[in-house]
């Protein structure tokens, strides 16, 4: 046979998200067995009783598990182990990540038997236009996504309270932001804050039934005259005495919306202003000269 075998032999993990925010990972049983066999040769990976450990899918928080990195106090903070089921009729083993398993905000890389896995099919339709469950633990969003090298990761947000950005509307010299507020009521003295370095610009926010709305005046953001780019991060202070909440857009399947969410730019006297998202889906306004 001069045929070519599929590349690498990296296990391919598929994901299914449900509306409750849980993610089910499925792995070909053959890959689980192979990872098991590989792990069995490493004494560090067998448990104290000497028997082979039950197969797990590991999530490791990026930046915490780099070789040689200083220990981070609580190791469990950086690694979550999800037990893998026996293979189903489709020949795939399953591991579930329910919302009840807390994950810190950031990137979590997925490992099987100590190796990264390839991102397979990601059925994330349930995440579109998601309305998070009303809970006391805040809003958690988890979006399985491919890393730059095609390996599977999970982008995690965890906010309490949470200000979800919605539609943006544009006037001649400003922008109106609408959104939904979870985990806090909008009270008297609610303001939106645009912050760039030491510069803070405040404007009144209004809303009811869990929504908020405010209008930014670009002329204020562009004063004093703009000499270099100002990236204003947008925050919502639900009440005069409340802590500010970062305004982000995380309740769907888009883990990075910089390329797909483009907004009209407005030019005024001595400035150009345009809203945009960061690589973490936080809403900003970029003001340039």
């Amino acid at each position, binding site marked *: *046979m*001069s*045929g*070519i*075998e*599929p*590349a690498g032999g990296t296990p391919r993990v*598929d994901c299914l998200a449900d509306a409750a925010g849980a993610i089910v990972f499925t792995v070909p049983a053959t890959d689980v067995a192979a990872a098991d066999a590989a792990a069995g040769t490493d004494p560090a990976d067998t448990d104290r009783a000497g028997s082979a450990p039950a197969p797990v899918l590991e999530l490791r928080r990026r930046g915490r598990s780099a070789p040689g990195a200083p220990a981070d106090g609580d190791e469990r903070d950086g690694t979550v182990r999800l037990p893998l089921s026996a293979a189903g009729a489709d020949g795939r083993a399953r591991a579930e990540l329910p919302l009840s398993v807390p994950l810190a905000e950031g990137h979590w890389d997925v490992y099987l038997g100590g190796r990264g896995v390839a991102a397979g*099919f*990601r*059925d*994330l*339709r349930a995440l*579109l*236009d998601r309305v998070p469950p009303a809970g006391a633990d805040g809003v958690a969003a988890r979006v399985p996504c491919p890393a730059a090298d095609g390996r599977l990761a999970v982008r995690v947000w965890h906010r309490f309270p949470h200000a979800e950005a919605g*539609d*943006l509307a544009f006037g001649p010299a400003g922008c109106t932001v609408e959104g939904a507020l979870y985990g806090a009521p909008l009270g008297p003295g609610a303001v939106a804050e645009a912050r760039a370095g030491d510069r803070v610009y405040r404007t009144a926010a209004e809303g009811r039934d869990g929504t908020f709305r405010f209008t930014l005046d670009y002329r204020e953001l562009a004063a004093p005259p703009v000499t270099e780019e100002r990236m204003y991060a947008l925050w919502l202070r639900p009440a005069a005495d409340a802590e500010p909440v970062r305004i982000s857009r995380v309740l769907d*399947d888009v883990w990075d919306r910089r*390329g*797909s*969410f*483009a*907004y*009209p730019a407005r030019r005024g006297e001595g400035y150009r202003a345009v809203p945009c998202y960061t690589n973490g889906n936080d809403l900003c306004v970029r003001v340039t000269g």
Partner: protein
Amino acid sequence: MRISFLLHNAYGIGGTIRTTFTLARTLAERHEVEIVSVFRHRDEPTLGAPPGVTMRHLVDLRKHSSGYDGDHPDYRRPAKVFPRGDGRWKQYSKLTDDRIAAHLRGLEADVVVGTRPGLNVHIARQTRRGPVRVAQEHLTLDSHGYRLRREIGHRYPLLDAVTTVTEADARSYRTRLKLSGVTIAAVPNSVPAPSVPPADATAKWVVAAGRLTSVKRYDLLIEAFAKVVAARPDWRLRVYGSGDATGNEKSALRALIEERGLHNHVFLMGPANPLEPEWVKGSIAAVTSRLESFGMTIVEAMRCGLPVVSTDCPHGPREIIEDGVDGRLVPNGDADAVADALLALIQDDELRRRTGQAALAAAERFDPARIAERHAALFAELLERGEHGRSRSRARDALHRVRGSLLDGLYALRYRAADQLRKRKAAGKRAKGKGKRV
């Protein structure tokens, strides 16, 4: 049967490569199948090697490889057998002429299948006596320039069969060329069953997919969607696909979205692979092209359970969609008609659900097993006729070869003259397009 495909480059990404891999993989379940790639520039096929299929290459362009051919002197000499009218001519060379010729002369197969006009010409001219010669047309006859159409007209009579992806294109081959004795059959492309469950018609999203190029007329779709949003602001549109090299089309579409105030409703999502999980995020698919050689995205969306609203453009859509039953066909270039058809499906949940289910059922006819069966039946029929039963008799072949070599001489003269003329014309201006005109 032993079936041998001849492919330009099995290691890249593209519709022809994908389609050939799917067909080869499916045929390999019952037959002995190889894919011979003229070029190889990577160790592994980008799209993943089709299981059960033997892969070979003729010209190795991997710099680290001990068999690297890029320094071969003939690699720099122009191709003479591979026709100039084929848009890939510049990549071909005396080296490819010779390697393909040697491959076809020593071919150990019952059937040889070419996958682009230039390679089909090689097969017609150089295959040893014996194997059934099949040319696949993945585009359409009328998408080729004059020079290539002439070449096809003169070379293809030495083939046993030409397969097109639409009946419309098969008609072109039958009526516009004199290919008497050559079997011309339309066999559509196949699309495997998706790996995700079908859409359930509840999501308020319209989905479109394909490269952001002007032929796809996404501008028309955005204009149409402005009308949709005016009536139903709760519905939104996602367009998947990468921009072309210039990025001009993407910028133009962004500007149009801004001009129509659709920044909260229309999103250019960038490329997605695989597409199935993206299709099922929508409840309706839209195709507004002014031309579709086949209409692969239409079938993909239907296989995911989406009703498709498509322009009734040449060539494929009307052979895939049954208007009003499993999707909608609207006049080519008519934004209002696109909007009305979308709204009809948006406003009527039951109609949308029913049409999506009909699409799912109708698209099963494009399953790889069924499509591969049609190809295999054609191959088997030609093989059964035997060499003497096939249209090409030894005498006729000989006649064609003589005629062919005479024509080669005439062509050479004519092309030289045309080249001179073109060079003069293009003195200040860079020639646009590839071989569209002589």
